[in-house]
């Protein structure tokens, strides 16, 4: 296969040259926020650092983290490093409580993020003749618009479908010959199920080639399931509104980790409790610094996403570092009977068991009791209760082995657990302590 690149001079840049470029940009942006953003100047002063302390890339560790709480200081415009007249776009990201995070972008920022998307799409094999059905939420959420701009920059035909209305989604795919879709993995599973139920044949009635799935973490098993059901290549797509939305991390055809465009971001992984830097291979919280953001640069932003750095050259030839698929949110982690558990671990086990359908829910209640509701696969039921009992036993045992905690497993009918067309709510904590 011919290797294609959108910006080869950046994507194939040697590690040394890339680091040099990063350092140059980091120095500039640290100076900029120190001079133009009172909150950053204040933070740097409190930490006892000045821009002149930055003598190498590693010196980034001297500078304080930016957390989501910082985004609410001098809200909403307090972190702007450009006058309002330079700002052209607002995106928000819902917090769990109270006001949404307000994120601002200049014309240059919009263009730069679109380029990251265009690079990523080309990386997946897409060309200007592809047709992208964009089924993320348009509006305040970055997911749809940022992808939209990037796909247009590449020259793809974009169908701004938005999420939901599954009948119409499938109709659009059939009518216009959609080749690429962009949606959440939980919605992709749902769409795939409906397509199967309707007897629509992937590869014949619909001609999807690639699915860009992101905005919520998912397991390798889920990827495989979707790939089989829809006959597509699934590319994991990572982003967060604070960092400009999708396009921050994207898989190449090696499907072994997500490249982060290092000319745009400085990447760190730290211990979520101590903030200490971690080595490649160690799981911790992803921390990102924007290197070319103009309107609202963020320094050492704590993403709350858990991952690990993957070093070494990539088959695709790109020199930019890779991270493992997101293993969960630092916030999603819950503790049952003293054991740290991520919903992803549970999903991984469930998706590898025959007889289990797409959806599940984790309920924590009473004194540290964990109940996992699992939808059974319609085709699995042969009429005998014994078979169901055996399935329940298998699920319970496999989960016990993986988690070191024995859950109570409840089997439910497919379609009865909530399917979210945005981010799936998997854990319900009803424990009273």
């Amino acid at each position: 296969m011919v290797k294609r690149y959108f910006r080869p001079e950046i994507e194939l840049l040697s590690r040394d040259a890339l680091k040099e470029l990063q350092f140059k940009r980091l120095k500039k942006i640290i100076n900029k926020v120190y001079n133009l953003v009172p909150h950053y100047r204040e933070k740097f002063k409190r930490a006892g650092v000045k821009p002149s302390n930055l003598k190498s890339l590693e010196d980034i560790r001297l500078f304080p983290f930016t957390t989501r709480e910082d985004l609410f200081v001098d809200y909403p415009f307090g972190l702007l490093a450009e006058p309002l007249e330079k700002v052209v776009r607002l995106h928000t990201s819902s917090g769990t409580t109270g006001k949404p995070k307000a994120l601002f972008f200049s014309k240059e920022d919009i263009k730069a993020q679109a380029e990251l998307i265009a690079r990523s799409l080309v990386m997946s094999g897409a060309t200007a003749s592809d047709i992208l059905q964009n089924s993320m939420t348009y509006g305040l959420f970055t997911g749809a618009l940022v992808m939209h701009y990037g796909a247009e920059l590449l020259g793809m035909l974009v169908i701004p479908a938005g999420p939901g209305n599954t009948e119409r989604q499938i109709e659009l795919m059939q009518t216009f010959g959609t080749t690429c879709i962009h949606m959440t993995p939980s919605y992709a599973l749902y769409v795939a199920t409906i397509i199967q139920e309707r007897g629509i044949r992937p590869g014949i009635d619909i001609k999807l080639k690639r699915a860009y799935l992101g905005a919520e973490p998912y397991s390798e098993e889920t990827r495989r399931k979707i790939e089989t059901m829809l006959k597509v290549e699934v590319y994991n797509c990572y982003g967060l509104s604070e960092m400009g939305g999708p396009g921050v991390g994207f898989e190449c055809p090696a499907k072994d980790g997500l490249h982060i465009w290092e000319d745009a971001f400085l990447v760190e992984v730290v211990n979520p409790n101590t903030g200490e830097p971690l080595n490649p291979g160690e799981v911790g919280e992803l921390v990102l610094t924007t290197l070319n953001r103009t309107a609202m640069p963020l320094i050492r932003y704590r993403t709350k996403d858990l991952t690990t750095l993957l070093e070494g050259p990539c088959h695709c030839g790109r020199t930019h570092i890779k991270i493992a698929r997101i293993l969960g949110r630092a916030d999603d982690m819950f503790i049952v009977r003293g054991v740290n558990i991520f919903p992803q671990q549970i999903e991984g086990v469930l998706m590898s068991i025959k007889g289990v359908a797409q959806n599940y829910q984790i309920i924590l209640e009473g004194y540290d009791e964990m109940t996992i509701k699992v939808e059974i696969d319609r085709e699995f039921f042969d009429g005998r209760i014994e078979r169901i009992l055996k399935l329940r036993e298998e699920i319970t045992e496999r989960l016990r082995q993986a988690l070191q905690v024995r859950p109570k497993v409840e089997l439910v009918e497919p379609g009865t657990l909530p399917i979210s067309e945005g981010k799936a709510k998997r854990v319900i904590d009803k424990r009273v302590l």
Partner: protein
Amino acid sequence: MKIVEILSIFAENKPGKLEKITEVLAHEMINILGFSIASVKDFGVIKLLVDDVDRAYEKFKEKGFIVAKLPAFGIELEDRPGGLYEVVRKISAKGINIESALVYVVETRKRAFFVFEVEAPHRTWELLKEENFNFLETSQLRTKQ
């Protein structure tokens, strides 16, 4: 092999579940000839002998139920004290283990069928076919016995 097909439906233990199932049959004018419920705390399996098993199966599928067809044996017995005992005695004498069963009464106090599932239908048939039993078959359900 003379078998009778029964329907088996997976159901979570929730109020109104049996109502929804019987509603489908009522709406379709399908008659329930016999049924049984096996339940383990959070879920159960409801088995039904109906007069139109294929149509009932399709309708349940259409409505999103988890449903399967199961082969069972139906043996006629006299609806009187000792009637079931006489049949079951012969079955157990052959070492056949009954997994699940229901009864279909054709005429009260006269005739009924003992409908049961086994693990290995073919082997069971070999053991029972020489017995002097009247076996129920799916095709007989459409018309009145």
